[in-house]
């Protein structure tokens, strides 16, 4: 880099800092609409505080990843978003979990309606023991979306990058598909009811590398229509896939283990210049 300034001319070079990434494409996703707003959220299992002091915004059409060591509450947090933890006895939420400004845990909120808009894909593929067609068509039928079922099924399967592989055997059993195909079927099943948000709880842990890559690429397409939140214990996956990443860790002070959100930022920033030393230690592998 040239150190000396040109002597006489008025059009001197601007100082170095201003030369930073101006024309390189860097979209600021935090300007988009807020889908989830978590305010001072504490999550309890009975008397045990599982996650503490959670404040976080999730934005529209963005892939947000949650990473961190095992047991730090990532799955608990994501299952809190669509009230899937209701069936766990003793589970309790304090603070506000706002979804488009509605508190998901307010009295009078129908959890079934919550889950209608916030869908979920699980760690192990769990297709129903029905045909491929019925797996996808079953929920829309029950929810009253009865007309144009064939188109709906095709649209969902195309959206999950599965149509070409199964279009000739829609009546075949879903259990005859490979693991990667079953997981994409579960994604198709989830998007068939046209949710607003898709939560993915370690969606690739049970899949081989090629199936994983297919699902990761699929997510890039899905984010155009849905807001995605993904929990993963594979931080490289979060690095590849997500625009925003939240790093959770365990606070072991006071003899109790509580999950806390340590750092939440653009993925690139988290993996090149993390602000918190705990984040740096985790992503560089200096501690698990």
């Amino acid at each position, binding site marked *: 880099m040239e150190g000396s300034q040109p002597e006489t001319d008025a059009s001197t070079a601007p100082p170095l800092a201003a030369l930073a990434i101006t024309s390189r494409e860097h979209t600021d996703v935090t300007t988009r609409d807020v889908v989830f707003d978590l305010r001072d959220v504490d999550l309890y299992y009975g008397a045990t505080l599982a996650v503490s002091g959670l404040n976080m915004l999730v934005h529209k059409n963005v892939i947000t990843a949650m990473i961190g060591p095992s047991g730090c509450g990532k799955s608990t947090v994501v299952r809190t978003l669509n009230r899937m933890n209701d069936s766990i006895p003793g589970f309790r939420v304090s603070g506000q979990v706002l979804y488009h400004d509605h508190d998901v845990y307010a009295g009078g909120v129908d959890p079934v*309606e919550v*889950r*209608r808009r916030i869908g*979920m894909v699980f760690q192990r593929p*769990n297709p*129903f023991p029905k045909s491929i067609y019925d797996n996808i068509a079953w*929920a829309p039928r029950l929810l009253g979306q009865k007309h144009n079922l064939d188109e709906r099924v095709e649209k969902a399967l195309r959206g999950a990058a599965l149509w070409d592989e199964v279009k000739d055997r829609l009546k075949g059993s879903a259990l005859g*598909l490979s693991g990667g195909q079953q997981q994409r079927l579960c994604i198709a099943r989830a998007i068939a*009811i046209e949710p607003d948000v898709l939560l993915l709880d370690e969606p690739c842990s049970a899949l081989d590398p090629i199936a994983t890559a297919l699902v990761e690429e699929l997510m890039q397409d899905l984010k155009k229509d849905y807001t995605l939140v993904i929990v993963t214990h594979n931080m490289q996956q979060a690095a590849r896939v997500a625009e925003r990443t939240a790093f959770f860790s365990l606070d072991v002070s006071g003899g109790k283990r509580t999950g806390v959100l340590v750092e939440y930022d653009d993925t690139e920033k988290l993996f090149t210049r993390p602000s918190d030393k705990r984040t740096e230690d985790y992503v560089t592998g200096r501690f698990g």
Partner: protein
Amino acid sequence: MSTLGADPLMDPKRPLSATGNLRRRRRTDRLMRGVATAAAILAVAILAIVIVTVTGKGASQLSLSFLFKDPAVGLDAVGGGIANAIVGTALIVALATVMAAPIGVLIAIYLTEFSTPRTARPIRLVLDLLNGMPSIVIGVFAYGLLIEGGQQAGWAGSFALAIIMVPLIARATGEMLTLVPRELREASHALGISRWRTIVGIVLPSSLGGILTGLVLAVARSAGETAPLLFTTSIFSNSTTVNIFGTALPNIPLIIFSDSESAFPADHARAWGAAVVLMAFILIGNLGARAMLARQRGKFQSQ
């Protein structure tokens, strides 16, 4: 280098023949295996003896007329068929099933889907106690509740049998329902489907085969129960009748009982024949149920 000292038997490079007290251990092993095998053979032998004896004594009675004709009527009547008992048993058991199945299935659904550990425990305890209740006590109860002061009736027998069947159906159904993986229910809930619709649309259809199996087993069990019918539907005529609500119906267990006490050898023979029919029904029912169960268990694994 081995740090195990100079013990030559511990040298890993030695040839692989038996060492140490292996010979004694082998003998003990063989002895215990022999004992266990003998016990298993004994169990099979007992069943075989029962089957062989009963079939031996009763197979000669088996004929179309035996199965389709009523017992001979008249003052000197001996022999004849057991058609009335077959029809009677079928009706009594059918009515019992109609009474017991819905209750048993619904109890199981409550236990697996809706109960908390606190509410589940007393209910399971009650079911276990009911299961262990002597059938004669149930029979007396049914008599006292439904018949005392009045006339015997087939449906009272069905009622008593239903009480016996409920715990069986509830337990079998419960086992089938818990076989349905939790992930399947979760998947349905995550789609915004209510709990009851999930049960009706996903859980029950998946376990239907198993539930039917449980029903078949319960039916097989109750078809052979004698004591409950003793008090409720034991005084009956020799002709086939279907009036289950008005009068006592003939049934196989009681035919066996009364015929065996008769003075006439022809009646004894008929009792053996009836026993063969009953035993065959139980065996076929059990084996068929087991086959259906095996198919059910394999249903949730990906092929």
